[in-house]
């Protein structure tokens, strides 16, 4: 007998995600992933000024803020053939790095950790032992017995208040929790410290983009002018603050995040064999070191790996209409030529076509359409995107820095290479790339300072700013790597206005429903085989789904090249 379990809402994510699974003999045998909210972004973009698109698309997501703005300015720059000055590229790289540092740390501690750390167990930890353990894995100064003792008292008071707030009704005491009480107490301490620290690194965005979340971007470069002799511009004080923020970030990552990640992973090595899912991985790559046009000099390379074959990296071309295509067989949309067709984003069409149950409902009709997410495919293949995909593509591309850090970690944890293809591998990959980015951010910073020292203060290329300079029609693609994976925008500009605009985002790749051939996407595939100790408390589902860092608001969208909008609500 199988048993249907519904987890809705999936919490500690961005957006609205529902997971339905079939459990048989204590294991997941079937899984369905559904995005349950839609806003209609691409339709809203039609007819707007392309230079404004970054602001609209940035609002696709406030957790991975900036990444849509970056994809958008690149898309418009690609369409209009604009090259940004080196300083603007460096500022964008620095904002990219700051975003990863904040986002990955918040994911680990605030969105993912409570799947592994039992907060209630921390109450019974011995502060002295906790201190000794903390000091054995890191030089982080906040590690005295008194520090942990105070924290434990605070936590005890909190629990005794009877108002458990964000910790209410958690799966505390679940037998899948395996950390000793002392590690749990360290986890809780760093949960709070990370929450306080994360608000610092984003100040890099505030300096260059005026605010965070949702800093400002600019087609053609960056809006923050450089003038070393002016209080109102990027000057030595502003740069010193950027340097300090990155330095502190590097310390936090190296002394808190990475030691915690390794300590926790050491107790959950069995999750190195659970949650592997798909065998194909894709990265668009990012962090240019010689301009966005020179993909060969990206810190994160571009490419596809098929069937976990690390000997071959396949080329990815966003402009080849045969490569990236979206399907709607199981999505609440309709195509003019039927539910089986795949559409390249430049040729997209969409109509809402909600055929699901009328709310309130208990289950979705998973054999029919069951999500507001479309299903993207690369040459027909389902792809996992995200930190693991990025590291695998870099590893397979021969990037020595990535190979060293991955091999070193596998050795430290004493697990085989195959452990990478798992829930644990995904979570570890996120930490490892954070460490790489902490290092790279200093390189970009040094380069920016060197440019300014050499007299280059250019930040903006205004040659194609005025719409009068644009061709009558233009098409573009802008690619980046959001923290959650490969992100691209496609634009068609006609008569100086947006004629068509599409976003194909990481969580659409990972969280989408099945394609017309019945092939699962990454979330669904990775849940198959997951052990479920207690169907009433499906903690294990959260572990695997959270390992992808779901971000659903941006995954759900619609577009229509003709701008027509049709309601086709059929089943009421």
């Amino acid at each position, binding site marked *: 007998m199988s048993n249907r379990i*519904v*987890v809705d*809402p*999936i*919490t*500690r*994510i*961005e*957006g*609205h995600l529902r997971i339905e699974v079939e459990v048989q003999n204590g294991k997941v045998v079937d899984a369905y992933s559904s995005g*349950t*909210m839609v*806003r209609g972004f691409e339709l*809203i973009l039609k007819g707007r*000024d392309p*230079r*404004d698109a970054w*602001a*609209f698309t940035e*609002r696709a*997501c*406030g957790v991975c*803020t900036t990444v849509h703005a970056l994809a958008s300015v690149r898309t418009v720059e690609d369409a209009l053939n604009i090259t940004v000055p080196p300083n603007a590229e460096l500022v964008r790289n620095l904002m990219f790095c700051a975003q990863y540092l904040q986002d990955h740390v*918040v994911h680990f501690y605030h969105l993912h950790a409570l799947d592994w750390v039992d907060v209630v167990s921390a109450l019974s930890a011995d502060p002295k032992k906790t201190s000794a353990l903390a000091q054995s894995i890191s030089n982080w100064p906040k590690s005295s017995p008194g520090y942990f003792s*105070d924290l434990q*008292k605070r936590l005890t008071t909190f629990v005794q*208040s009877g108002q*458990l707030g*964000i910790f*209410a*009704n*958690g*799966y505390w005491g679940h037998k899948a929790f395996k950390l000793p009480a002392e590690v749990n107490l360290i986890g809780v301490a760093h949960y709070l410290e990370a*929450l*306080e620290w994360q*608000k610092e690194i*984003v100040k890099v965005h*505030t300096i260059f983009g*005026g*605010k965070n*979340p*949702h*800093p*400002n971007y*600019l087609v053609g470069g960056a809006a*923050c*002018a450089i*003038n070393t002799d*002016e*209080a109102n*511009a990027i000057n030595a004080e502003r740069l010193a603050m950027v340097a300090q923020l990155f330095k502190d970030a590097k310390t936090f990552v190296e002394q808190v995040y990475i030691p915690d990640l390794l300590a926790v992973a050491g107790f959950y090595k069995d999750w190195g064999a659970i949650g592997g899912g798909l065998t194909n991985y894709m990265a668009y790559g990012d962090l240019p070191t010689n301009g966005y046009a020179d993909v060969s000099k990206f810190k994160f390379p571009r490419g596809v790996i098929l069937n976990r074959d690390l000997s071959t990296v396949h080329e990815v071309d966003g402009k080849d209409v045969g490569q990236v295509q979206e399907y709607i067989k199981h999505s609440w949309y309709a195509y003019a030529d039927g539910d089986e067709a795949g559409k390249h984003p430049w040729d997209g069409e969409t109509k809402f076509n909600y055929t699901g149950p*009328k709310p309130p*409902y*208990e289950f979705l009709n998973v054999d029919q359409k069951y999500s507001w997410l479309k299903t993207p495919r690369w040459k027909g293949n389902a792809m996992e995107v995200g930190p693991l995909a990025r590291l695998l593509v870099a590893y397979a591309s021969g990037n020595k820095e990535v190979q060293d850090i991955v091999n070193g970690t596998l050795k430290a944890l004493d697990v085989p290479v195959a452990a990478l293809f798992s829930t644990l591998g995904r979570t570890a990959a996120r930490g490892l790339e954070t460490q790489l980015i902490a290092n790279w951010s200093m390189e970009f910073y040094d380069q920016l300072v060197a440019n300014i020292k050499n007299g280059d203060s250019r930040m*903006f290329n205004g040659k194609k*700013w005025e719409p009068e300079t644009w061709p009558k029609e233009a098409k573009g693609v802008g690619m980046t790597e959001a923290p959650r994976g490969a992100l691209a925008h496609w634009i068609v500009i006609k008569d100086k206005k947006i004629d068509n605009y599409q976003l194909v985002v990481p969580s659409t790749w990972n969280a989408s429903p099945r394609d017309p051939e019945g092939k699962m996407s990454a979330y669904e595939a990775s849940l198959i085989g997951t052990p479920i100790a207690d169907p009433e408390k499906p903690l294990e589902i959260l572990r695997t789904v959270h390992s992808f860092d779901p971000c659903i*608001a941006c995954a759900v969208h619609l577009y229509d090249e003709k701008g027509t*909008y049709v309601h086709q*609500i059929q089943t*009421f």
Partner: protein
Amino acid sequence: MNDQTLTIYQQMLNKGYDRRDFLRFCGWMGALIGVEASGVGRIVHALETKPRTPVVWFHFQECTCCSESFIRSSHPIVGDIVLDKISLDYTETLQAAAGKQAEEALHETMKKYKGEYLMLVEGSVPTEENGVYCCIAGRSALDIVKEAAADAKAIVAWGSCASNGCIQAANPNPTGATPIHKIISGKPIINVPGCPPIGEVMAGTIVHLLAFDRIPQLDGLGRPKAFYSRRVHDTCYRRPNYDAGLFVESFDDENAKRGYCLYKVGCRGPVTYNSCGVIRWNNGVSYPIQSGHGCIGCSEANFWDNGPFYQHLASFPGFGIETTADKIGVAVGAATLAGMAAHSITTNIRKRREIKESIANSKTDKEGGA
């Protein structure tokens, strides 16, 4: 209210802070909210005696930038807010429980603290097609918001989505995205617009509610006057450049490098009420204009449809620095949270008309000049 709960003062003592720390904390909260020194005593009293207020935080059509902004607050820091000041019993972004357990936590709070819980809403509510465009736990956002509002003590509409519809309500508003105050009536609703609002403004709104046990004074659009009564233009440190006629003509030109006024390259500071120029962002580090980009007006209703952003406004009313939203609007007096009766928000028709006119003028100017 659960009588086992500890006051904020007790909890601070338990955390190892002394009374001096506590008084200092009350002092800066007072400064943040803008009360005079004589008012600090009331904050001290409130936090010494109040148990943690139960709070439920909903997410509908949004991007979670409001939650992200909230956790950026530097004073109070969010760890202290959620552990010591409120009991955040439901929040899809942070809570440990998921699915059934999360929904149980929500309903338990709504039942146990009927009429006492604070309801925070992030996101607009789609009203087309029976609300199928946003469902949580198999229920439509429309259903959920109505149910939760019925027994809430007060509602805070976070960000532009919940207070004016924001981007999904931009033309053609495909899902019928609707702000909270157009769905719920008969409850105090505090609109805290912005995309997102400043973190310290969000925290400050919460602190005001807890410390004074009343909703802050609101303007005609339901916004706390402490944070939304001044135009960005009137509080902009680049304002003297505007008055002197010193403008950036194009991004990164010599005038941009000198930090001149951004009016000509597109700045909505003159028609935007927010405290970016005063509080600034991320603990006062900067704000859009200081970092060289015009204000896009993200706290104003319909700002997405008032573009394009890089088109300058032809003219705008109420030039004088003395102008406040209050003067050209209708202020809504403060009322205590406890026993709060029906509370209506008066629309600031006059100000809206003025903004509309300035946009229309701007468009005319563009067409004429092209």
